[in-house]
């Protein structure tokens, strides 16, 4: 899968349309509140993962500050929801996205001089500072480790089923939009620039692409989406605690990305879905949730480097070979 629009055949478009349609009608036929809650939470995590994967896959940067950026989106949109109740909630979420985008851009600048593990350490340190400052603010904006004070959310007047459905659709909309945006960006000037910066910095610079601007842009876009995810999370869960930035959610998200396949459009979709199912299945075996997580992460990184998407890619190449044979067979075969 090349991931560019140019390669999307009519068959694929039809497939996408069917998938979107199925996803859209799904909550009309399914309404178990427990699983719907998990699915909506999974959708929000997916938005976060798409944002994370974007900066990772495009700029080749493991940004371990992404959860802090996500949290800042939640806190800043929550600040509007709580203290400026005149502002419509969707605008507050959008504000959270913008705020996170700006912070993410600011975070991008110091990473420009660094490479590899240093970038990760810088962003990790950033996340630690944000997390501790939030923890140390128990009676202030963040509510500390006990959580953000209750906010109204997007749909305060809906009943449970309708509430879940509404959030499901909103999140699905954001997911679809961001998937298309990412797919489009990949084959845009910026996307090509970013990937060539990652793979061959000198070549890119020679072609007149400014690698710094490209990376800053990737951070900004990724931060914006992460902030939106944070705002959605806060409005859906009506709370946000500092543990959302902790090591456990980070390990979970990293594993989702790695399992799906880093830097691909469909990787986060597959990884998030798969791990959400596994973690939910293991809810009755709490000790095993993280043990399995650690083992899975290790096995995938070591033995399936491209994640599931990469694995499918290899299978796909085999299948293409198979198709090619078919084309050969159309010719009168000798013998």
């Amino acid at each position, binding site marked *: 899968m090349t991931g560019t629009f140019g390669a999307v055949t009519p068959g694929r478009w039809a497939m996408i349309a069917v998938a979107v349609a199925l996803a859209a009608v799904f909550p009309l036929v399914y309404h178990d509140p427990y699983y719907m809650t998990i699915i909506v939470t999974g959708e929000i995590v997916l938005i976060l993962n798409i944002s994370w994967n974007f900066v990772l896959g495009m700029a080749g940067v493991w940004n371990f500050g992404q959860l802090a950026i996500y949290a800042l989106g939640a806190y800043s949109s929550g600040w509007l929801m709580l203290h400026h109740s005149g502002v419509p909630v969707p605008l507050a979420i959008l504000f959270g996205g913008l705020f996170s985008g700006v912070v993410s851009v600011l975070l991008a600048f110091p990473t420009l001089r660094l490479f590899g593990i240093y970038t990760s350490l810088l962003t990790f340190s950033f996340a630690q500072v944000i997390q501790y400052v939030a923890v140390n603010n128990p009676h202030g904006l963040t509510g500390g480790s006990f959580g953000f004070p209750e906010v109204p959310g997007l749909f305060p007047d809906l009943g449970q089923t309708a509430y879940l459905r509404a959030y499901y659709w909103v999140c699905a909309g954001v997911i679809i939009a961001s998937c298309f945006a990412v797919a489009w960006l990949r084959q845009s000037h910026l996307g090509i620039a970013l990937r060539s910066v990652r793979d061959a910095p000198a070549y890119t610079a020679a072609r007149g692409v400014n690698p710094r601007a490209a990376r800053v842009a990737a951070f900004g876009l990724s931060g914006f989406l992460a902030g939106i995810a944070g705002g959605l999370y806060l409005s859906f869960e009506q709370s946000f605690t500092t543990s959302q930035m902790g090591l456990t959610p980070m390990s979970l998200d990293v594993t989702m990305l790695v399992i799906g396949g880093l830097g691909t459009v469909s990787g986060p979709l597959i990884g998030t879905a798969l791990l959400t199912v596994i973690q939910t299945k293991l809810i009755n075996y709490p000790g095993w949730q*993280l043990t399995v997580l650690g083992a899975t992460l290790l096995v995938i990184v070591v033995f399936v480097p491209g994640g599931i998407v990469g694995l499918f890619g290899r299978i796909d190449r085999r299948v293409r070979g198979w198709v090619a044979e078919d084309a050969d067979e159309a010719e009168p075969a000798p013998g």
Partner: protein
Amino acid sequence: MTDAVAILANGVVYGSIYGLVAIGMTLIYGTLRILDMSQGSMVMVGGYVGWWALATHGVNAVLALVAAFVFTFALGTATELVSVQPLIARRNEVDFELVTFITTFAVAIFLTNVALQHFGPFQQNVPTIVSGNLKLYHGVSISYHELTMAVISVVLMIGLGLFLARTRWGLAVRAVAQDLDAARSLAVPVTRLYPLTMGLASALAGVGGVFLGALYFASPTAGDLPLLFALIVVVLGGLGSLTGTLYAAYLVGMTQSFCEVEIGTTWTLPILYGAILAILVFRPYGLKGSPSEARL
């Protein structure tokens, strides 16, 4: 004055322990270009070995330390074999550092949760190695346990330094850190050297764990804070620089000690991480480090 003495004494104790944990991380980073996130787990495991030996089997302190050393050495070796060895072929790829960062982190998650299932959530009390206090100045005192811990840390760190400077295998470790191909062409068996290096580093952390267990107890998450501090130390020292790590360990210990007294315990970690952030922004490769050289 009393404050100053107390800050100094605490700082030395903290610094010695961070040094012991961080120096292993530095050794591994210097040799293998891996930021080993499983070091914290080795502290945790060392604590449990100490508890098992001292509290439940009543063996003497030296044996307990040796047991922790041996066990974490083996565990570190095993960690390398599962989380790094299969990836060695990708050593020269750009993302090797990050991939192994993640695999060792995965090992850490795994070990923490295995400990949780095996030992349960409770903390366990590890007896002190030596009892009693040394009175320093106007009521400032330091326990002999902490003193022993500091001394053994320093001895182990000096020992590591001598090992690297004076022995055939020590030279080989440094050689591998600096030029892998040249070292291999001189018949250094890297496939054995890597697990041994990681075993050695883990064993240092494991010994640290026995001491820490007596101060802060053995528990499944006992390695988390030492890891967070060790990360600060290795970055501050410049990844891969042994001397830098040593300075940084004591600097971080002193800073922590100072923050706790003068600013507030709760601000220690954010201040230290803020400092790291500033250092990475303005002086990206730590106090002693430089970007492209191997430094062991």
